[in-house]
């Protein structure tokens, strides 16, 4: 191929590949895309290299990712390492420009997820319109999870309400799992109440995971905890009760119980063991052993 022809084809390919945003166009209506495009235009003019880095990711190159042990494309770590300055280039790729190279389905999915997760992790309110759009339009559980977590981290009043009001199953599970990140004092009691009453097993498991993450004593030890002792005890009792009632969710509920840990959960497990049916005893005993071992340290 002649050099000029080669350059032309590369340009054409780039133009084709970059024509579409990575997320559903319904997620970025004009009122979102127009101001974002203006901001991005100005930012790109100021620091094009930041956009270049996001547009040329190692984790999407087969010669890179096939060397990794998982052997599949993944960009979240790389994007995370770029730090907050990559926010606008990432939003640009997600919602406006796409990626300037053809990607396989797996690469495209990994890019979309990596961008969503990293944008979400930054906890920057500028990302909220895009995350709201994604939460409202995607059906992919991992992307819903990323969007919900981004909304919960900032946890503006309207987003907290939207997360609590989600009704469709995948949205509801993603929201429940994310609400533990919400710094609002209203979130934990609401989650505990939901855990006590929900009739949806998947919702219960997601609520438990969210509560456990929010109650993390490693992240926010002692006085920094988002849940006071009485609420933790109530949450622990609800967790153990749901564990007994929902055999199909026991793995997830067990992880939540151990993540939350502490004396309240151990007490709830011991209480639950007192009148547990035979089939539940081995699992509860295993939880008791793990929790007690942890507390002994």
């Amino acid at each position, binding site marked *: 191929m002649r050099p000029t022809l080669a350059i032309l084809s590369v340009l054409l390919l780039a133009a084709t590949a970059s024509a579409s945003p990575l997320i559903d166009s319904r997620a970025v209506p004009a009122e979102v895309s127009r101001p974002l495009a203006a901001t991005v235009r100005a930012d790109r003019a100021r620091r094009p290299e930041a956009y270049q880095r996001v547009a040329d990711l190692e984790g999407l190159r087969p010669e890179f990712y096939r060397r990794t*042990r*998982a052997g599949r494309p993944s960009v979240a770590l790389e994007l995370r390492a770029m730090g907050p300055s990559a926010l606008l280039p990432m939003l640009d790729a997600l919602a406006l420009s796409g990626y300037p190279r053809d990607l396989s389905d797996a690469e495209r999915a990994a890019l979309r997820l990596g961008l969503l997760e990293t944008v979400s992790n930054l906890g920057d309110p500028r990302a909220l319109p895009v995350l709201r759009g994604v939460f409202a339009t995607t059906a992919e559980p991992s992307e819903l999870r990323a969007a919900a977590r981004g909304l919960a981290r900032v946890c503006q009043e309207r987003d907290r309400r939207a997360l609590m009001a989600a009704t469709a199953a995948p949205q509801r599970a993603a929201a429940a799992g994310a609400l533990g990140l919400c710094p609002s004092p209203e979130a934990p009691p609401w989650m505990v109440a939901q855990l006590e009453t929900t009739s949806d097993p998947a919702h219960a498991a997601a609520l438990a995971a969210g509560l456990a993450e929010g109650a*993390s004593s490693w992240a926010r030890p002692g006085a920094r905890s988002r849940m006071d002792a009485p609420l933790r005890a109530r949450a622990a009792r609800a967790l153990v009760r749901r564990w007994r009632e929902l055999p199909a969710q026991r793995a997830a509920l067990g992880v939540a119980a151990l993540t939350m840990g502490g004396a309240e959960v151990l007490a709830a497990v011991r209480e639950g063991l007192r009148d547990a049916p035979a089939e539940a005893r081995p699992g509860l005993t295993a939880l008791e052993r793990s929790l007690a071992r942890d507390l002994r340290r």
Partner: protein
Amino acid sequence: MDATPRPRWLTAALAVLLVGCAEDAATSPSGLTADGGAGDVVDAPAAPRVRLLVDADRDGTVSDTGADVTFRASWDATHGAVFLANVDDDDDDDALDGADDVVNGEEDARDLARVRVAPIANLADDATGRLTLTAPSTPAVRVFRIDDGVWRRVDLEAETLSAADLRAGLELGIEASDFPTAEWAGEVTLALAVTRGAESVGDDRVVLRAAPFVVSTSLDETDLVYATAGAGVFSLGRFINDLDAITVEDEMPFETIDGLDPDWRERNFGPDVWTQDYMELGWTAMPGGAAPHGMNVVLRTPNPTRRIAAWTRREFVGPGRGYVWHHSQRYPSARAHDPSLDSFGNLEVIPPYAGHPFGRLFHGNVAARSSDPELREFLNAQRVQGPVLELDTSWLHVGHVDEFASFIPVDSPRGWKMLIASPRAARAQLQALVAADPANGERVMFEGQRWFYPQDHPMEGRTYPAARTVNSILADEELMAFNQGDQAHIDLVREALQTEAGLRDDEVIEIPFLMWEIENGQGAAYMPGSVNLLLYGRSATMPRPHAFALNGADFMETHLRDMMRAEGITAHFAEQWDILHANEGEVHCGTNALRRIPARGAWWEVTR
């Protein structure tokens, strides 16, 4: 011959009793005593007695007395004959010995389990014998006979044994082309019927069971360590050099696999360095006298797209070195199938414990994220190390069980302890260091290390420094919350393994390292994952931790070395950050070990 007349009732009772001893053994020709004497016929030639013999007492020889006779048609933990899947290549002709119709030399002949047709006296000249085999069509089970020192296959469909053959007696050999499968438990029945025209002269049958593929445990004696190399591949050289130095010090043979061989080099991405993942090494054996007779066997990863796995067939196979490969043609649920779970870092063995004298296999697999079902079926069909204990590893990005558990030998009644990943211990250790001296909080972990590419690499511009202070790590809420969640997952798998093997808490050693989220809630080792180690004898090679220096030495190296020394293990550290750790693996992932068939390799005594 016993010529003393004996009452009819006594002869009949003895015959019934002895046939009863042989359980469902051969039907004896009527009127014969078990020792071949001519019961109630006085002064007449003894009736021909048809008898097949095998090594039913598992002493390595076939005899025509005792348990070899009594138990020739039965199989349990104490008696019953064994034969091999003859999957090695003793004549080095690149064809597996069990795949052809010939016996490939003396060594190959040793891999055939012997069956003898006992000489039949008083047989008429026009009598003939026919052998039949109750066996599956797949794998192939072949029967050979030896005449004047030459082995040839017996065509069971067409061939008959002549009266001369039967009078002289015959030595047969039997082999399978593969191991037991989900459809075939490994048992075959070989029968011999002798007739004269339409009249039955007598018949007999023997039962044999095919030896399983047994995965070596990390505690088995090691003969050779493998790692994948690639000349000139940046950063791989450091790992290989360290392994070379460590194995020289330990006097352990070390062999590199050329990852850049044109037969399996991946275009543009260099060597597939995950030596643990593309093969599982084990063995198979049958009784052999003083020690079991068998061969080492490599199980190839079921992932057919893993090009370097071709090394197992091309280079590993040879005399006394066999090969087996099972994989699905189509996955029942393509969406749930994750090829990463077909790697053999995701197949480990709990060392021997009560009820599992050859250990028990464990493997990461759940419905939502699953491995190749044919692999699991194959492993379960081997029975002696199963059923495979399936654990949830879906919380890990790579998803392998070797990311959180390993085993070391110790001087205790059990003989081993379990090592388990522990973010909890890592956090506590960092906190303790800061509590002891607040200045430690500002010390830098992973100084000079980078993510994606190492320093001085041509792609260095795309790298990110890994260096971070202890305080910033401990204060990272998301990192700490993630580690607490992963600790919960680890606690659950620990509980499952501990309960399964009946381990006390003091038989579990927590190996400190923190995890981090890669994507979608799935994690991997953030600090080099030292539980993922290469073990042989009392030597453990761990990833160099790159923690900070305290009193002139990396504090984590000191800590791990002390922990291992207390158990009688010498810890070594290999540099592997760039080539393995930064790509979500550690030392165990990058190595493999060929281990000896254990002297206690009598799998046939396992009652399952």
